[in-house]
């Protein structure tokens, strides 16, 4: 079996945002979701290059939606996480869980 793709921190953030948005994940909503959940505003350049790179790796797939007047007649590009992307994020989160086991980071002095 092939080893799941290793992910950077921002790649994980973007993948989780796409999963949370299910079938309404496109540039604007992904940015908004990251801003609301992670309390940080991703630079548009970083977001689009990350999406492009992840699509190249086969972690996400995109499809073009219908054009709308509020976007100047331009279509949205919707993203969905592929099976490979899901496996990669599950693997990354499992690794974090294993490393967190036995640590009391959320209590005591670090809380």
């Amino acid at each position, binding site marked *: 079996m092939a080893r799941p793709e290793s992910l950077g921190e921002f790649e994980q953030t973007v993948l989780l945002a796409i999963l949370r948005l299910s079938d309404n994940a496109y540039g604007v909503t992904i940015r908004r979701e990251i801003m609301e959940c992670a309390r940080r505003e991703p*630079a548009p350049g970083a977001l689009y290059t990350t999406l492009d790179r992840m699509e190249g790796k086969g972690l996400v797939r995109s499809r073009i939606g219908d054009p709308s007047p509020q976007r100047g007649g*331009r279509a*949205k590009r919707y993203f969905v996480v592929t099976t490979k992307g899901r496996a990669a994020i599950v693997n990354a989160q499992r690794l974090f869980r294993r490393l967190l086991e036995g640590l009391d980071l959320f209590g005591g002095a670090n809380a």
Partner: protein
Amino acid sequence: MRSGFVAEWILTRFTTRSRAASIVGDLFESRSEKGTLWFWRSVAGIVLAVAWRRPLAFAAAFYLGLHALGALQMPIYGMYAAHRPPQEWMPMFAVLSGLGMVLWMAAPYVAIRFGLRDSFAQIALVFGGLVTIIIFYWWVPAVLAACLVLAFSLITTSISVARRRRALLALAIATAFGFGGGLLAFYLAGLYQNHLYPGPVAEINSRLINWGVPLLATWILATACSRMHRLLLGRDLGDPEADLRIKLDS
């Protein structure tokens, strides 16, 4: 509305048309709450994020190409004197060193632009390495045979895998353009030299040729590499170019 078309036109220089349109659409949607300044700052940020690899890749190709030309021609003429192969081999070695130079321009260019995991970059690096070994050790029969067997097996295995087949085709076409571009650059420089006259301008003119020839050759090769990668290995399956990729795969 006009700014949208301008932004889309700028982004299309660095990415596919459909991708540029969807990005500008996203920025347009947020513009009403964030303002025009944010819109243009975002366009500039995206261009910078998408395009920083291009000038770096071009500079690396230019520098390594010049370096490779010198490094590959030295052993050919140096070792020729020592080992004296038949006279007829010389044109073949001259072509081989030109090929090596083109491959050592293409390899860093595609490796920086598209990453080391890209099959185009990997194939260019392997063939660049093989040509270099052949140039340096052509008189050792075992090394020469091993390189030829490796090149042949790489070609045959690449043909059976769709993405590698397309990468091989992209490299072949880009190399042909690079080689032709180099010859064209030298030809143009030769024509230009006929119009030189002695005097203070001659110094400027000779510098123009010294820099202009490799710059023109690098530009032709870089353009061929980018176009071939986009046409044969591009990721955007929403493009009409994808039809060609599907045809090549089947």
